[in-house]
């Protein structure tokens, strides 16, 4: 049901924020709160962490109350499985491209990454994917490497 999934996301977000608040407060306390009466490195992380924890718990209470009461929160469209696959694909290809360009150079890494995304995950027609990939890679190379002098990794040949 879209509605309950939306609220579940909100609850998860509040829980994650509460976790971050706890972690920051704990680390802050470890770093020390005061030195000779003046703020030590841990004071502000501790204060911000505690405040975040309180806010997150307040949000959590409101979200849970909305969940029990049938909900005041607006429903949002739910991602389907293909959407999640696409997100994972974008992340994997993007990170892969960044790592691979150190070994195979920017041009080849960008070409493969774009083609994978357009053809593999976006299901664009082969002709459109190839033409756009070649065009975009060439423009990026000319603009960034030739015109702007950005030292993008070159092909090791």
């Amino acid at each position, binding site marked *: 049901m879209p509605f309950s999934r939306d609220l579940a*996301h*909100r609850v*998860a*977000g*509040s829980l*994650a*924020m509460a976790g971050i608040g706890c972690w*920051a407060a704990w*680390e802050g306390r470890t*770093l020390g709160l005061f030195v000779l*009466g*003046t*703020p*030590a*490195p841990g004071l*502000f*992380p501790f204060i*911000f*962490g505690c*405040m*975040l924890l309180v*806010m*997150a718990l*307040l*949000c959590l209470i*409101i979200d849970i109350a909305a969940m029990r009461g049938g909900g005041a*929160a607006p429903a949002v469209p739910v*991602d389907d499985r*293909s*959407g999640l696959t*696409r*997100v994972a*694909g*974008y*992340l994997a290809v*993007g*990170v892969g491209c*960044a*790592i691979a*360009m*150190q070994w195979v150079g*920017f041009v080849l890494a*960008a070409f493969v*990454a*774009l083609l994978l*995304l*357009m053809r593999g*995950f*976006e299901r*664009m027609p082969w002709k*459109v994917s190839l033409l756009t990939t070649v065009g*975009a890679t060439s423009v*990026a190379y000319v*603009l*960034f490497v030739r015109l*702007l*002098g*950005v*030292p*993008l990794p070159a092909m090791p040949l």
Partner: protein
Amino acid sequence: MELLDALSLGFATALTPMNLLYCLVGVFIGTAVGVLPGLGPTATISLLLPLTFQMDATSSIIMLAGIYYGAMYGGSITSILVNIPGEAASIVTCIDGHVMAKNGRAGTALGIAAFGSLIAGIATVIGIVLIGPSLAQAALKFASPERFALVVFGLTLVTFISTSSRLRGIMSALAGLILSTVGLDVVSGQQRFTYEIPYLLDGVNLVILAMGLFGVGEVLADAARRTDDAVVALPVPSRTSDLLPSREDWRLSGWPIARGTVLGFVLGLLPGGGAMIASFASYVAEKKLSRTPERFGRGAIEGVAGPEAANNAAAQTSFIPLLNLGIPTGAVMGVVLGALMIHGVNPGPQLYIEKPELFWGVVASMVIGNLMLVVLNVPLIGIFVRLLRVPAGLLSPLILLVCIVGAFSINNNVLDVLVMFAAGLVGLLMKKAVIDPAPLMVAFVLGTMFESSLHQSLAIGYGSAWVFLERPISATLLGASVLVIAVSLIAPLLVRRLIDAPGPN
């Protein structure tokens, strides 16, 4: 510097061929970005920062400013013709603008939006010219305690920029404050949250964070929820004369444009104000002031003229606190601050004295940019609307490529790209959890200033916090912060009591 000398210097700077070209590129990209839903000015300015590395600081800020106010124009095109706001500040334009278009008055709606923005843009520049030097003089009196108080005031207002609830906005801002403490402590030099990772010693890079949260985050959010719905745009006016409002339209729109300009001017100066809040405030004000409020929502031209003037005025004045005080009033200004820092420019009161060509050049370029936008938009509306037909499946991979190149080019470091993707994933998860990342971004920038100015102030006051209350400006700003917090706590209770109160209505 005399005002006329300052303006002459500004126009001499803005009218150089290269700066004219950068202004044109900025407003063109800005309009295109404004038209495309999803990709807002924050993401675009972050993505295009690497392109400005080779430019001088003045040219780059002229281009980035053009993108920002160009996006305000572009946003109104899709709001009126498609009923999809291209960006947040154009949401209210949908209400009456699209109804006007459906009633066969698309040209008038587009025309009044463009001319209203132009009038507001020029009036705002006149306002900046009049108050800019006084603000800069006042800013010269700002020492650490005043700066700290201003940062506190900014932090209390920052949650107003959140598109989600206030509480979730506060959560986002607090997360940004925590993130700003990563790296070496400004006083002791002790490592915080670095876990012996050398990359984190300098803290999280502002530009990388912005590119991740707003650029990659937007691409991932779009990939998660791709729809194949075809965009249906109402017919684009074919003749230039169709865009010209009639005498009656001008009569109805005159005061809304004037009021929208004043509202936008003031709200743009405040941290947490900005174009979106200005446009909403203008719409509400016009509806309240109208003798025929029932026309609103049914194609009232005042509902287009006022908000469009307000959002453009706010977009332009938001540069003033940034350039004069070094305080970003919103996420876009946070990214522009990053651009200034990359160019070795420290915004603040000294900027007006040390780099007058930058300050006045950017101000003068706003007049030129606004004129360019009206001249550009009249013949190119059809082309901009066609941008909506470019499939997201082509656009998203290309944006991702720009993100990768941009992040890498900052320090020529692959780790930056990986951190950008991590920030992008965080941006996506925040959107899913209905937590707006914009307060995080602004609080992240203000957090660094918060700590350093507090320590400097305490040093001035020999460790005593009274230093903040002994100085009139800092005491006033801290008092205003307390007032904002008190009002935001009491106002909802009062509203609820009014709603619950029994009465004839």
